[in-house]
C-alpha cells in the first residue's frame, strides 16, 4: 500500500497527485501539436482537428472525435471554411466556430445538426479568437473580431446575439481575455497590454487589480476558475496574480521566474479545497502554483492539453490521459505516511485481519478507545469514492465493512450508496466507454444521458435498472432516444421498423410515440410516422403532427376521437385555410362534431359563412331559420321584407308549409303596420299580431283591428278576449255589454266577470254572473265575493270539491250569517258524500 503515495507531491499544506486515467488508444501522426483540440469537461469527448495553415489549401483537414480513452467515435473530412475554435456544449454537441462567424453544430457521431451565425459584420472582419463557455443558462459562444469587437451568445439553444461596446484604445486583438459570469450577467475581462477592461452589455470600464502595488508588465494570460469565482492573471514578467473574479480581493502574487508566455493556464481546485492552485502549461513544463506560493514542476516530454474540471485538471497527451488533483483530505488522512487517523488504523486492522494476525484486534482496540470507529468507517467509505483504482476502492470498502461489524447504530446508507455509485462509475470509466468521471462530478441522470448521447443504450438501460430509476424517467427515456435514432436510419422498410420499435417499447410507460413519429417525419419518412402515430395513445399528441404532415382528414377524425374540442377546432381552422371552400365544407359534413363546432363559431363570427354552409348542405330549413333571425338585424323594412322573402322561399323548398305561411303572414303584417304607422303614426312596426290588435283597440282603431281579425283568421276566442279586455281597460261598460250580446261568447262569460272585477266594478260584473255556465258559476260568484250565491250554486251542483272550495272561502269570517251558511254547506257536503 505504501506506493499509493508514490505519485503524491506536497504543495503547501496539501498534497497533489497525478493519476493515470487511460493509455490512449488513438494513433496521432503528429501528436497534439498544430491541432485544434477540444475536450469537454466531466470526462467528455475529445475533438481534434489539424490546423489548416500547415496544410495546403487543397487538402481538407480531418476532424476526429474520440472518447476520453482515445477510441474513435467519428471521423470525417472538414468541408466547410477555416475553423477558429472547437468546443463542446453541455449536451455534448461539437461546436465549430468558423472564421466567417458561422458556428456549425455536430453531434457525437459526427452528424451535422444545425448552424447559426455570430452576426453579419463578422463575415467581413473575421473571427480572430473565439471562446466557448458554460454558464447556468447553457453553453455560450464569445468571439472577438479582427476589428476588435466582441460578440456574445449566452445560450446557443436560445440564440440572442449581443454585441459588446467598443474598447477604447484597442487596436487589433487584445493580449488576452476571458469570459466571466457574475451576478447573472456574462461579461468579458480583457487585457490590452498592461491595462484591464471589463466589458458588459452596456459599457466598458477600466479596472485595476486590488491589493496594493500594481504589477509591472503586460498581461499575457487570464484564467477563470470552473465556478467563475477565481481569477488568475499572468504577466510577461513572470508574475502570477490570483484573486476573486469580482476583482474585490487579492489572494496572492507569485513570481514564477518564467518569462515566456504560457500555452495554457487552468485553475485547479476542488470542493472544500485546502490549497487551490493554478496549473500553468508551457511547451515542455507543467507548473502547479499554489495560492500560497509553493510550486510543483512536472517536466513534459510531449505536447499536452489541460482540461479544467470541477475537482482538478485533466492532462491530455498523445500517449496518456492523466488527472491532476489535490488529494482529498480523507485520502490524505488514510494514506499519508505514518498517519494515525482512524481510517488509516481501520485499514491497517483489516489488513492484519486478512492475514489472520492478532494485531487486527490491537488496531481496533486503539480506534475504539478513542471512540472513533464510526469516523473510521465513514472515512474509509468516503475515501473509496475518491479513488480511481478498483483495488484501492475494494480495500477501503472492505475495511469499512469490517469496521461496521463492530458498530450497532451506524446508518448503512452512505456505504450502500458509495458502493452503488462506484459500480456505475467503474462501468463508465472502462476504456471501451471512456467517461472518466470522478465521484465528485457524478450525478446519475447526467451520466445516463451521456451514455444515451453515445448511443450506448444497453449499458444505459442496465445502469437505470441497477440504480432502480423509475421506468418513467429511466428506461423509457432511453428507449425513446433509441427509437428516435432508429427511425433516422435508412434502409429498413416501414413495416419492419414499426414492428421493431413497437416490439421493444410495447410495455414501457410514458413513451411518446408522437415524438418518435415527428423524428421520423423530420427525416423524411412520412408513412413511417403515420404508422407510428397509430401507437400513440393520446390523440392530443397525434393531431399537431398529422397537421404538419398535411393529413388533415386523419387529424380531424383523431381530434374528434379525443373528445377535446380545442383540438377539433385547431384542425378546423387549419383545414379552413388549407382547402378550398367546397372541399372544406364537404370535410365538415362528414364530421358532425366538427360541423356543429364550426357552426357555432360562425354564428358569432361569420354569419355569411353560416349561410354558405347551410346552402352547401341543402339544409333549407336551417337556412330559412337563419333568414328569419337575420331579418331582425335589418333596420330598413324593405331589406327586412326581402330577407323574409328568402326565408319563405327556403321554407317552401324545405316543404315546411306551416312556417312559410307564418312568415308570409308576418310580411303582410309588417306591411300593414308600416301603412298604419305612415298614416296614423301608431308605432306598430315589429309588434306581434296580438300586440298590434291590442294597440289598435286601445287607440280606438276598431275597424283596422277588425280587418286584421278577418285577414289573419284570428280565432274568435282570442279576439273576444282581446276586445273585452280592452273595453274593460277603457271602462266602456256599455260597449262591453253590447259586445256581450252581439253573439254567443266563444270564451264563456266568466272572463267578463273577471275583467270587470279587475277594475273593481262589482256592479257590472254581476250582470254577467247569470250567463256563466253552471260549471263555472261557483267560481263566478266567488269572484264577485258573493259567498252565499256561490254556496247556493255549489249545493245545487252537489259537487263535493266545489262545496269544499266555498267552505274554505267562508271560514275566514265568523259572523252569524256566515256560520249559518257554513252549517248549510257542511250538511250539503255530507249528503254529497253519502251519494
Amino acid at each position: 500500500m505504501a506506493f499509493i503515495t508514490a505519485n503524491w507531491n506536497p504543495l503547501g499544506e496539501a498534497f497533489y497527485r497525478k493519476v493515470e486515467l487511460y493509455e490512449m488508444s488513438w494513433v496521432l501522426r503528429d501528436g497534439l501539436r498544430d491541432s485544434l483540440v477540444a475536450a469537454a469537461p466531466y470526462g467528455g469527448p475529445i475533438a481534434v482537428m489539424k490546423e489548416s495553415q500547415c496544410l495546403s489549401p487543397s487538402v481538407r483537414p480531418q476532424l476526429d472525435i474520440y472518447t476520453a480513452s482515445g477510441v474513435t467515435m467519428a471521423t470525417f473530412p472538414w468541408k466547410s471554411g477555416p475553423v477558429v475554435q472547437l468546443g463542446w456544449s453541455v449536451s455534448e454537441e461539437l461546436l465549430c466556430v468558423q472564421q466567417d462567424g458561422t458556428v456549425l453544430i455536430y453531434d457525437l457521431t459526427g452528424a451535422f445538426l444545425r448552424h447559426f451565425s455570430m452576426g453579419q459584420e463578422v463575415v467581413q472582419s473575421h473571427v480572430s479568437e473565439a471562446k466557448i463557455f458554460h454558464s447556468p443558462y447553457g453553453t455560450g459562444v464569445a468571439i472577438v473580431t479582427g476589428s476588435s469587437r466582441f460578440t456574445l451568445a449566452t445560450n446557443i439553444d436560445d440564440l440572442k446575439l449581443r454585441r459588446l461596446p467598443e474598447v477604447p484604445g484597442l487596436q487589433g486583438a487584445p493580449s488576452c481575455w476571458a469570459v466571466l459570469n457574475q451576478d447573472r450577467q456574462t461579461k468579458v475581462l480583457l487585457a490590452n497590454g498592461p491595462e484591464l477592461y471589463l466589458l458588459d452589455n452596456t459599457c466598458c470600464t477600466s479596472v485595476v487589480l486590488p491589493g496594493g502595488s500594481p504589477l509591472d508588465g503586460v498581461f499575457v494570460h487570464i484564467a477563470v476558475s470552473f465556478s467563475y469565482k477565481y481569477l488568475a492573471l499572468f504577466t510577461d514578467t513572470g508574475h502570477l496574480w490570483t484573486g476573486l473574479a469580482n476583482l474585490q480581493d487579492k489572494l496572492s502574487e507569485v513570481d514564477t521566474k518564467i518569462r515566456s508566455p504560457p500555452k495554457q493556464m487552468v485553475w485547479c481546485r476542488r470542493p472544500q479545497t485546502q490549497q487551490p492552485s493554478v496549473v500553468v502549461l508551457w511547451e515542455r513544463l507543467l507548473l502547479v502554483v499554489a495560492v500560497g506560493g509553493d510550486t510543483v514542476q512536472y517536466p513534459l516530454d510531449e505536447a499536452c492539453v489541460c482540461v479544467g474540471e470541477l475537482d482538478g485538471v485533466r492532462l491530455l497527451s498523445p500517449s496518456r490521459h492523466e488527472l491532476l488533483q489535490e488529494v482529498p483530505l480523507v485520502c490524505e488522512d488514510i494514506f499519508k505516511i505514518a498517519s494515525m487517523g482512524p481510517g488509516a488504523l481501520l485499514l491497517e486492522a483489516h489488513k492484519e485481519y486478512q492475514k489472520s494476525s492478532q494485531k487486527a484486534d490491537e488496531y481496533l482496540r486503539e480506534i475504539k478507545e478513542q471512540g472513533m470507529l464510526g469516523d473510521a468507517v465513514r472515512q474509509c467509505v468516503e475515501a473509496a469514492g475518491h479513488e480511481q483504482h478498483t483495488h484501492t476502492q475494494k480495500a477501503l470498502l472492505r475495511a469499512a465493512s469490517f469496521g461496521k461489524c463492530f458498530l450497532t447504530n451506524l446508518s448503512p446508507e452512505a456505504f450502500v450508496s458509495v458502493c452503488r455509485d462506484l459500480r456505475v462509475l467503474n462501468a463508465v470509466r472502462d476504456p471501451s466507454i471512456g467517461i472518466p468521471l470522478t465521484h465528485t462530478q457524478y450525478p446519475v441522470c447526467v451520466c445516463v444521458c451521456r451514455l444515451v448521447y453515445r448511443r450506448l443504450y444497453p449499458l444505459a438501460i442496465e445502469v437505470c435498472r441497477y440504480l432502480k430509476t423509475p421506468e418513467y424517467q429511466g428506461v423509457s427515456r432511453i428507449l425513446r432516444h433509441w427509437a428516435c435514432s432508429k427511425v433516422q436510419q435508412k434502409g429498413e422498410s416501414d413495416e419492419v421498423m414499426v414492428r421493431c420499435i413497437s416490439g421493444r417499447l410495447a410495455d414501457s410507460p410514458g413513451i411518446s410515440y408522437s415524438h418518435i413519429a415527428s423524428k421520423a417525419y423530420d427525416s423524411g419518412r412520412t408513412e413511417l410516422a403515420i404508422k407510428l402515430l397509430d401507437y400513440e395513445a393520446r390523440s392530443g399528441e397525434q393531431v399537431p403532427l398529422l397537421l404538419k404532415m398535411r393529413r388533415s382528414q386523419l387529424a380531424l377524425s383523431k381530434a374528434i376521437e379525443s373528445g377535446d374540442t380545442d383540438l377539433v377546432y385547431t384542425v378546423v381552422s387549419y383545414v379552413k385555410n388549407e382547402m378550398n371552400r367546397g372541399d372544406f365544407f364537404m370535410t365538415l359534413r362528414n364530421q358532425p362534431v366538427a360541423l356543429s363546432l364550426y357552426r357555432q363559431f360562425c354564428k358569432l363570427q361569420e354569419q355569411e359563412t353560416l349561410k354558405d354552409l347551410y346552402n352547401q348542405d341543402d339544409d333549407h330549413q336551417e337556412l330559412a331559420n337563419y333568414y328569419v333571425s337575420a331579418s331582425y338585424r335589418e333596420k330598413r323594412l324593405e331589406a327586412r321584407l326581402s330577407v323574409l322573402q328568402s326565408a319563405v322561399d327556403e321554407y317552401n323548398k324545405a316543404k315546411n308549409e306551416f312556417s312559410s305561411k307564418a312568415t308570409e303572414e308576418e310580411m303582410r303584417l309588417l306591411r300593414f303596420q308600416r301603412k298604419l304607422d305612415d298614416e296614423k303614426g301608431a308605432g306598430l312596426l315589429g309588434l306581434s299580431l296580438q300586440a298590434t290588435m291590442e294597440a289598435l283597440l286601445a287607440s280606438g282603431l276598431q275597424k283596422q283591428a277588425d280587418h286584421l281579425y278577418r285577414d289573419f283568421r284570428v280565432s274568435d276566442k282570442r279576439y273576444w278576449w282581446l276586445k273585452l279586455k280592452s273595453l274593460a281597460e277603457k271602462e266602456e261598460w256599455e260597449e262591453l255589454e253590447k259586445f256581450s250580446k252581439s253573439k254567443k261568447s266563444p270564451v264563456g262569460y266568466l272572463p267578463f266577470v273577471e275583467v270587470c272585477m279587475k277594475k273593481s266594478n262589482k256592479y257590472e260584473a254581476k250582470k254577467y254572473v247569470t250567463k256563466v255556465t253552471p260549471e263555472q258559476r261557483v267560481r263566478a260568484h266567488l269572484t264577485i265575493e258573493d259567498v252565499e250565491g256561490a254556496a247556493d250554486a255549489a249545493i245545487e251542483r252537489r259537487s263535493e270539491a266545489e262545496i269544499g272550495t266555498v267552505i274554505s272561502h267562508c271560514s275566514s269570517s265568523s259572523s252569524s250569517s256566515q256560520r249559518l251558511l257554513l252549517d248549510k254547506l257542511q250538511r250539503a257536503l255530507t249528503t254529497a258524500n253519502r251519494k
Partner: protein
Amino acid sequence: MSPHATRRVFTSKGQTDGCSPPLSLIPMAQSIRRDSPELPDFSLLKRLARDQLIYLLEQLPGRKDLFIDADLMSPLDRIANVSTLKQHEVDKLYKVEYKPIVSTSDQLCFLIRPRLQSVKWICDVVNADKAAGKFRRYKLIFTPQKFYACENVLEEQGIFGDVTTDEWGFHLLPLDDDIISLELPEFFRDYFLDGNQRWVRTAGCVLHLLHSLYGPFSKVYGIGRCSKMAYESWREQVEEGEQKGRDGEIGSVFLFDRDVDYVTPMCSQVVYEGLVDDIFRIKCGCVEFGPEVTSSDKSLKVMLNSQDKVFNQIRNEHFSNVFGFLSQKAKNLQTAYDKRCGMDIKQIKTFVSEELKGLKQEHRLLSLHIGASESMMKKKTKQEFQELLKTEHSLLEGFDIRECITFIEEHINRQCSMIESLRLLCLLSLTENGLLSKDYKSMKAQYLQSYGVDHLPTFANLKQLGILVEQPTGETLTAMENKVGKLVNDRAAGKLTDAFSSLAKKSHFRALSRRLNLVPKSDEEYDLRVPKDMAYIFSGAYVPLSCKLIEQVLERDGWTGLEEVTRLLNGQEFAASGCSEADGKARSDTQRTILVMFLGGCTFSEISALRFLGKEKGYKFIIVTTAITNSARLIEALLDNRA
C-alpha cells in the same frame, strides 16, 4: 293552500290496462333508519380557487384595473371580496359591458368566461388603445379554461402578441354544504342544442378535481351520452396522472344528463326554495328581495343557505306548510323575548350579551321570510295559479288532456306569459309523447300570433331537442327510423352529436311513469306535512323521474332490473366500479355519501327531493350541477327570438 292539498279523485281508468306491474315500491317507513353521514368540507374548493386567482393577479405586478364578466360577478364575490382584490393591487373593478372603456390605469386585467364575444370586445379595446397611441399591458384570465377559438380571435384581430393569457381553474363553487355549482348555464344550450362538446372535458376535469381531493370513488353510475363522455374524459385524466391510495370521503357517483328528464324541470316548483327561485330568481345562492318583501323602500340581498337558520328549516318544505311553521316560529321567538320580563338586572345582562343577538338575528330573518312568503302567497294563491297546477297535474297523470289543451290555448290567447305558455306546451308534448299534428299546428300558430313570428327558430330549437314536437305520422316515422338506423350503423355513430340523436328520441313518459310508479295513486289524500315519498315536492302529484332513477339505481347497486326503463330512456346508461379497493368495508359512512352530478343543470326541487331521500335512506347527497336551473331558465336558454 290547505295542508291537505286536495287532489282530484280519479276513476281508475288510467291505470287498469294489463301492463306489467309497477316496480315494487320500496316500503317507505323503513325499519332501520340510518343516520346520514357527515359531509366532506368543500370550503377547500373556495380556498384553492382564491389562492390561484391571487397568484394570477400577482403575475401582473403593480396597480391594475380589473374587468369582470357580468355573470362572473356573483361567483367571484363568493370567492374573494373586493378588499381581497384591492390587497392585490386591483385599483378599480368594472363589469364587462361591451362598450368602450374609461380607465386611466396602464394595466388592464380581464376576468372572463371563454366567450368569443368578450374576446372580440377586448380586441376592440386594445385596438382602440393602439389607434390612440396609448400603451398599456393587458392580461386575459379565462375561467375555467381557455379555448383555442378565443386565442384564434386574438390572432385574427392581430393582438395576440399584445396580451398575455392565463387560465383560472375556477371550476367549482360550493353554493351550500351540499350543493356545488360549476356556474356554467351555457352548458345546457351548448351541449344539448348546439351539439358543442367543449364543456365535456370541463366536466371531466371537475370529476377529476373532486376525485383527487375527496376520492377515490367506489362506484360510478350514469345515464346519458354526455355523462358517458365526461366519465371517459375523467378516466383518461386519472390514468395520465399519478394515483395515490387513500380513504375517500365520497362513495358513489351518479352522473345524470339533463335530457334524460325534461319533465321535472318543466313543472312549477312548490317547495319553498324552488318557489323562491321561480319567483325571485336565486342567483349564485343569493336572492334580492324587492321592497314588497322587505316592507321598506329598499331592496335587500340575502344569502340563502344552511347558515340561515330559519331558511334551513323551511327550504325543503312544501309551501303550504311554510306559513304555519313561520307563525309557530314567531310565537316561539316572542316567548323567548318575553323571558326578559321578570328578570333581575344580572339576568338581563346575560340575556342581552348572550341571547339577544341571536334572537335579533333570527327575528330579522324571520320577518324577511314571512315577507317573502306573503309576497309569494299573493302571487301564487290566485285562482290562475291553482288552475295552472291543476293542469300540470292532469298532464302528469295523463288525464283530461283535451281540457288541458284548451287551458293552454286560453293561456296563450290571453298572453299570460310568454315563457309560461311555452312551458305548458313543452310539458304537454313531453308527457304526451308529442302533440297531434293538428294541435301542434294550431298551437304554434296561436303562439306566433301572440308573441311574434320571430319565435319560429325557438320552435325549431325545441323540436330539435325533442321537447316540443309533433307526433310523427306513420310515414315520417319510418323515414326517420331509416335515417337513424343508417346513422347507428355508421362506425362514428358513437360520436354523433346529440342534435341528431334527439331526432330519434321519443318521450315515453307514460310508460316510464307506470314502470317507476312516478304518479302515486290518487285516491288517498296526501299529507304534505308528513311526506311519505319524494312526490311531496310536487304536492304529492309526481315523483321526479331523475330522483327516482337515482333511488332505484342505488337500491339495486346498478342498472339490473331497469332494462325496460333504460330502453325507454334511449339507453346510454353505464355503471363502473371506481378505482378504490375499499369495497370491503362497504356501507361505511363514506359509502353512503353520494355525489350526484347533473350535466345541464338541476332544480331546487330535485335537490329537495334528494335531501328527503337521503334522510329516509340514510344517504347523504352532494349535488354537483353545471348550474341551478328552473323551467324559465331552461326555456330562456332555448329562445331564439330577436333579443
